[in-house]
């Protein structure tokens, strides 16, 4: 165990954590703004700290864009009364929000978010079984929700918990099956290899080679992160708030942030698996960076792709109504799983044909 390794890893973890938490906060803002625009409103445009007035020109604009809103949101979440209803199961009630938050962050450990800066590879842990690790961790995410539903000890949260466990298991299968063709193409489970395989030209991106896999993965990602159109575990109109009905204050905020963190990690996975990770197929941007500046550019490219996917996920929420539960299960089991299986067989056959 040498010290430089430890220090660099800790620094990377701290930076990734900080960046992701900021992105989570602003993803919430973007969500509110986009929803407002789609619904003919303006969205948050009031939160103004005292110094905003003194910034010439930019100040009022920042206020109007709601740049300070996340700060206000966070303060509100922290200062609200943390209420524990009398009928809950205390232990589970306390650990559920933490469990909901953690898996989403753990997933990011294996995502290569850039090529390298100096001699440091821009990934926290370059595992050989990267993708299996992410699936394993993602599959643990359901516990937070199930436990929250169970802990609340009342009907609606319970229904939410039950729904989410069934939904997440079902869609995990199609998600897992949908990426297998990608790994057949790459021949390795390491995420850095996956990115290496997509360099060279736009046609090498897996979204071009495996569009079907990409779409199944994208839709399964909606179900895994409990986003509309598959937000049945929360389903405000039928289950009040679903699994987090009984939560308030910071505990509720943890669920809320956990959902956005999960969105970010799923988008990061999609960028890595299908959209070429930190590469762009021109200007030599698909080779590991030689200088620090290029390293930063790579990270920027990764973040931009990530934001694009986040925007899609956010937009879809305001575009489609919630599915009925039987439609959801039908879509998962009777449409996507067969299609994903067919995709695997087809890819394997083509590969065997090409390579022989």
């Amino acid at each position, binding site marked *: *165990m040498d010290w430089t390794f430890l220090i660099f890893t800790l620094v990377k973890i701290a930076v990734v954590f900080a960046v992701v938490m900021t992105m989570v906060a602003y993803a919430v803002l973007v969500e509110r703004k986009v929803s407002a625009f789609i619904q003919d409103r303006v969205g948050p445009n009031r939160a103004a700290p005292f110094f905003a007035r003194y910034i010439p020109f930019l100040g009022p604009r920042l206020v109007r864009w709601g740049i300070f809103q996340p700060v206000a949101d966070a303060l509100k979440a922290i200062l609200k009364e943390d209420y524990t209803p009398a009928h809950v199961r205390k232990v*589970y009630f306390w650990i559920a929000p933490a469990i909901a938050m953690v898996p989403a962050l753990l997933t990011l450990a294996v995502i290569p978010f850039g090529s390298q800066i100096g001699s440091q590879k821009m990934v926290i842990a370059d*595992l*050989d*079984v990267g993708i*299996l*690790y992410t*699936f*394993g*961790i*993602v*599959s*643990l995410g*359901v*516990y937070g929700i*199930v*436990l929250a539903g*169970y802990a609340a000890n009342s009907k609606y949260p*319970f229904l939410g*918990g*039950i729904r989410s*466990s*069934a939904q*997440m*298991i079902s869609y*995990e299968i199609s998600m897992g099956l949908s990426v297998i063709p990608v790994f057949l193409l790459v*021949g*390795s*489970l390491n995420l850095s290899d996956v990115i290496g395989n997509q360099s060279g030209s736009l046609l090498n991106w897996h979204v071009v080679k495996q569009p079907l896999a990409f779409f199944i993965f994208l839709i399964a990602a909606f179900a895994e992160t409990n986003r509309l159109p598959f937000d049945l575990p929360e389903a405000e109109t039928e289950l009040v708030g679903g699994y987090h009905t009984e939560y308030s204050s910071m505990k509720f905020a943890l669920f809320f942030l956990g959902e956005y963190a999960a969105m970010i990690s799923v988008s990061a996975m999609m960028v890595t698996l299908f959209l070429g990770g930190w590469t762009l197929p021109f200007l030599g941007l698909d080779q590991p960076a030689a200088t620090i500046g290029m390293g930063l550019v790579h990270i920027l490219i990764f973040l931009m792709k990530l934001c694009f996917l986040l925007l899609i996920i956010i937009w879809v929420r305001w575009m489609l109504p919630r599915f009925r539960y039987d439609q959801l299960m039908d879509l998962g089991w009777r449409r996507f799983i067969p299609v994903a299986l067919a995709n695997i067989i087809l890819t394997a056959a083509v590969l065997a044909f090409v390579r022989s």
Partner: protein
Amino acid sequence: MTDLLFIVFAGLALLCGFLTVANPFTRSPVASALFLVLTMVWLSGLFVLLHAFFIAAVQILVYAGAVMVLFLFVIMMLDLREEERRQWNRFGVAAGLIAVAGLLGITVLTVVRSGISGETEATLEGTTPLLGTALFTQYLLPFEIVSVVLLVAMVGVILLSKRELK
């Protein structure tokens, strides 16, 4: 370092395993299920120490992530109060002991017969292609038999749960 981690993981796995079957604080099946999940997690830690990353990841993915969620799912549907009130049942204890003893016997017998010394290094080094090759060449027949058995079990379950077939 590795030895220390081994002791930590193994100890925690044993502790959680114990709490799964005999929890002095609560008799709630949900607590048992959750401790079983924790046991799985520590076991996968042990696999990591053996450099078997693939098995470690699959352990979490399949057992902790899918099987145990279904367990929880079913447990939460049950009437837990009755479960907590239930008394020891002599037949159950005896059957359980016999089953555990049998399983332990088989495991010990297999390990002793195979002649593995305590010092074996991991031969597959955990890389996925090697594991796949081994499964599909050396162990092809057992692998296929297991898949057929699982398929039969699946068909059986569907038959049982759909009583009135048309």
